[in-house]
């Protein structure tokens, strides 16, 4: 009789990419290979997109970082021991801090980091480095929606209801969200609804819409004001709801009176008739949702634009009721959790404000430091990148889970700033474009090699579980922070490397905060409980909060706030020198800066390089043929992309995806104008010209 074969290892976890966090099961090991299967999890119901199906490919990518790298005297990155690498970092940090003070060292995090990593990174920056200069790439993701959501509802959770609620919606307005490409499994929750899609492009999502509104880039706010105008004029306001549950309707409505549909039409190019139809479809539905995405949020007026759409939702009485609502479709895997636990410049764990004395006192107590020792708010992401290496700016930067050399606006400038640093340290699992510029590269674990928690777009806290051991010389980000802290003189216990221990501390730190996790434990999650925050630690276990605002909104008076917003145009208008609008975004096969997906053959093969989507007439007028190479140039710089003719494009607009490196970086032309409230850059509109590429 032969021996029974050893059981093949399995792990129930979640996809490493977007905020939908599809449930997956991993099976296999390093020897037989790892297979991924979708689970029957409420958000993906047994389905996955191509990125999810191929996610395990990144685990074995040929250029996986498996040893620390330190830049040698010859200027090249060379393999080094962990001790050498960490000593180099610690010495560099100490030198800079001694000479220039604590704020001369900065930290840049990521929206893909687990809750535990985000939490510990924030603590490390505030307690051990003592710097106020910490922010993260989530600033480039959903910061506008977060700011608008907090102002309107007193609380920001992307979806204040479970994803599955959308299935019963009669009408869903998707404002600047291309779900069919960026979050494909979510589409199955929308296939019973009539969709109103607002997007300058006829995206895969727009093609499935009952009504497509195709505004000029940068004009969505005018459209939102126009929709409110129509709702008021046509008597479609939910008067009772507005009176009982909101505040500030009159001034918002007064403002919208200036935006009659024919005026909005002239600015947006969306027919007045189509605007009216959209409002009626929403108002006449027994169940309607308004959802925003990056398309309306990534603007220097993103916060106001989201507020404009929230105004529409409030006027129609949607938020805070079962079967209707407003939500934001956040992008990154831990886009929600990543913004709650303190890697954001103005925040402390539990979604607390770093400027609030009570919040500071609470968190300082958990951290065992004096509240006065905690730094105040720092610069937002682009402001921080913009001053690196300058007189007033940081000279050292630690990057965790981000690739700003590709993902930040005005990329040539950001690259130059990164290059000017005395010390750049990057922790990553692949040699991203930013890692290649680093003085020290620290190889860290990937999703299938580590445990932790993430919080999905519906505010549900999820367990990430490991299947594989990491490669021998690879450490977890938590371990890296622990090791660095010890080298910087901290006692070992202050930075646990075990995610469970970190989560226990996070629970205590979040206790009583807006995003209260104190009632959530690994045990409860592992037992299969569905826990959406807030979930306070109560005598009888708190069931979590799948639906927020049903009785009251989170402002002290329980009422939601209308925002008094007015239209303003894009930061940069088209001109004779730059006669076209350029907008940027994602394609299905790739994720963010492409550092992961460009390394998966099955994903890279269909979209291997940057492309320029352009109307055939516009291309012809600029001398561009299909499949030829084009230069796309703005006042900030230019990039190269391959022409794709598309007759559904607006004549005045071109599109370039932002996933590609080097000369294919869309962010070489984007505008770094920032939203004054959220710090969001203007990724979605700037003025460019296009011309044939000259060798």
């Amino acid at each position: 009789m032969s021996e029974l074969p050893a059981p093949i290892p399995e792990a129930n976890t979640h996809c490493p990419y977007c905020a939908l966090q599809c449930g997956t099961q991993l099976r296999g090991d390093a020897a037989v290979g790892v297979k991924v299967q979708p689970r029957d999890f409420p958000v993906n119901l047994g389905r996955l997109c191509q990125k999810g199906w191929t996610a395990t490919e990144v685990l074995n990518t040929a250029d996986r970082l498996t040893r620390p790298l330190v830049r040698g005297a010859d200027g090249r990155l060379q393999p080094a021991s962990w001790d050498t690498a960490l000593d180099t970092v610690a010495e560099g940090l100490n030198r800079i801090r001694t000479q220039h003070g604590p704020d001369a060292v900065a930290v840049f995090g990521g929206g893909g980091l687990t809750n535990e990593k985000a939490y510990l990174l924030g603590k490390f920056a505030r307690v051990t480095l003592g710097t106020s200069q910490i922010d993260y790439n989530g600033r480039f993701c959903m910061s506008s929606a977060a700011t608008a959501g907090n102002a309107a509802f007193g609380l920001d959770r992307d979806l204040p209801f479970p994803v599955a609620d959308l299935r019963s919606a009669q009408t869903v307005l998707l404002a600047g969200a291309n779900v069919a490409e960026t979050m494909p499994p979510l589409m199955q929750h929308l296939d019973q609804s009539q969709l109103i899609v607002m997007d300058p492009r006829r995206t895969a999502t727009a093609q499935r819409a009952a009504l497509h509104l195709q505004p000029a880039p940068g004009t969505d706010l005018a459209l939102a004001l126009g929709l409110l105008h129509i709702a008021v004029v046509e008597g479609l306001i939910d008067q009772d709801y507005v009176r009982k549950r909101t505040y500030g309707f009159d001034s918002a409505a007064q403002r919208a009176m200036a935006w009659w549909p024919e005026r909005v039409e002239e600015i947006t190019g969306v027919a007045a008739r189509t605007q009216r139809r959209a409002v009626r479809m929403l108002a006449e539905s027994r169940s309607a949702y308004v959802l925003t995405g990056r398309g309306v949020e990534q603007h220097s007026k993103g916060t106001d634009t989201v507020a404009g759409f929230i105004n529409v939702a409030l006027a129609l009485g949607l938020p805070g009721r079962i079967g209707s609502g407003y939500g934001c479709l956040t992008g990154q895997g831990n886009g929600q959790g990543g913004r709650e636990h303190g890697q954001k410049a103005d925040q402390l764990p539990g979604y607390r404000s770093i400027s609030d004395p009570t919040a500071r006192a609470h968190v300082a107590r958990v951290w065992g430091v004096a509240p006065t020792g905690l730094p105040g708010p720092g610069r937002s992401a682009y402001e921080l990148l913009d001053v690196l290496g300058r007189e007033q700016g940081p000279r050292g930067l630690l990057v965790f889970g981000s690739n700003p050399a590709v993902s930040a606006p005005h990329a040539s400038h950001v690259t130059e700033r990164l290059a000017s640093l005395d010390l750049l340290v990057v922790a990553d699992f692949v040699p991203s474009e930013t890692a290649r510029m680093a003085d020290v590269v620290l190889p860290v674990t990937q999703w299938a090699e580590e445990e932790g928690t993430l919080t999905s777009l519906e505010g549900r806290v999820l367990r990430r579980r490991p299947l594989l051991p990491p490669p021998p010389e690879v450490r977890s980000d938590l371990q890296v922070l622990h090791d660095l802290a010890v080298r910087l003189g901290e006692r070992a216990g202050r930075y646990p490397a075990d995610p469970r221990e970190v989560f226990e501390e996070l629970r205590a730190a979040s206790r009583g905060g807006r995003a209260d996790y104190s009632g959530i434990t690994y045990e409860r999650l592992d037992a299969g409980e569905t826990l959406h925050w807030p979930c306070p630690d109560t005598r009888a276990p708190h069931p979590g909060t799948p639906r927020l605002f049903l009785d009251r909104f989170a402002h002290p008076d329980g009422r939601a706030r209308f925002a008094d917003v007015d239209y303003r145009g894009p930061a940069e208008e088209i001109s004779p020198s730059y006669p076209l609008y350029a907008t940027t975004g994602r394609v299905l096969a790739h994720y963010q800066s492409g550092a992961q997906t460009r390394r998966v053959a099955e994903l890279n093969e269909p979209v291997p390089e940057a492309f320029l989507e352009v109307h055939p007439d516009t291309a012809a007028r600029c001398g561009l043929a299909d499949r030829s190479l084009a230069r796309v140039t703005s006042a900030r710089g230019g990039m190269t992309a391959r022409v794709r003719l598309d007759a559904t494009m607006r004549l005045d607009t071109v599109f370039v995806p932002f996933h590609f490196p080097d000369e294919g970086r869309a962010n070489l032309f984007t505008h770094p104008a920032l939203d004054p409230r959220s710090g969001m850059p203007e990724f979605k509109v700037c003025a460019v010209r296009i011309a044939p590429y000259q060798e």
Partner: protein
Amino acid sequence: MNNVLIVDNGAVAQRLAERMRHHGYEGTLTTLAAEPADSRRRPPFPSGTRTVTALDRERHRVLAHVSGTETAYPYDTLVLAPEARPLIPGIPGLVSAKGYLTEGVVALGTASGRARITGDTVVVLGEDALAVETASTLAARSVDTTLVCASPYPLYTRLGETCSAMLSEQLEQAGVTVIGGKTAVRRVPGHLRLEDGTTLRADTLALCTGAAPDTRLALDADLDVHDGIVVDDQLRTSDPRIHAIGDCAEYDGHLMAGVGAAWEQAETLAEILTGRAAAYRPRPSALRLGTDVADVCTIGSLADLHQPGTRLISLTDRANRRYARLALRDERVIAAVLFGLPQAIATIRLLHRQGQRLPSDRLGLLLGLPPRPASHSAEVNENAPVCLCNNVSRQTLFQAWQAGSHTVTALAEAARATTGCGGCSRSVEELCGAWARETRSELEKAS
């Protein structure tokens, strides 16, 4: 400059004040009602309103009555922005012996006067955009509405015969009784009599019979006035301390009537008065009806359609009430009359504002057709993805089918089609069916 005085407190004045605050103006801002005491509106004013009586340019002040007392308001900068005054036609029975409009008669200079219209049966007299919009609004409120105009159809001179006839039909369909080519001869309480002896019931008679710029204050103060108060591209009158915007202003020989123009001027002047480099650039006269009853838009005048060196594109679809006349130069719109083509109107207005060229597919543009494929691909593209979420082409599916995967489930297993959002399930099922039929018929042929 820290004391700005705006004469009139209407929508345009409010807009200017708001935009100045928006641009950071922190000085004093005062608005004064412009309408002097000889108004034909009843009651003339709410008590306590400040109404302007005179402009004293030498001493930089405006005199106004406040509750019967004359008060002087000094200014560093004065902005004149009175709304146009409605013109009252010389029809007997409209005006009382004291010069007031008689009970049941309302004169509209702008849409804002519409709130004063009451009653179940209303006659709107006039043929301009305001008349059409007013009649449409009333009909939508289920008011029994009749529109009476001297031309054969409303907006006849702006739209031409065919197009204005379509508008008239559309109004009728929306519940407005249109009586064209008729003149009103007398108004008696509750009724309006026409030249042919017809008597129409009218609880309210709404006069939309044109408006004239209110230049009285400027004339009295010896400012340069032609049809309107003459302004330069800084919206400055002949007195550099005094600006004029809105209905009363005349730039480059033209009155710039309409709320759209007024708001642009308010924005430009707000920029100028807060120290920004700005200049007023009028847009060509354009008309866009603000009503849901019909999609109507003109750019330029009817005569502009026939300017030399332009190319004319015409479309007339009587049955569906769709109409277009477009004059192009260098592929750019010079003039246009568009009716019943909502998306074309939206696209052309924006392209015109941007100074951009029209797309080459003019018919597709006008009819709002879905765009045609970029090129040559009439036949099925074997490499086009059937399943977008997993980038599965028809060819890949066919290979899997040939290898034995003959159901949607089997194809999902073999090629991952349908496993993303599930949206392509039906297409994959249809392909399965088609390939099965093809195979059967080939087998039958072979046997």
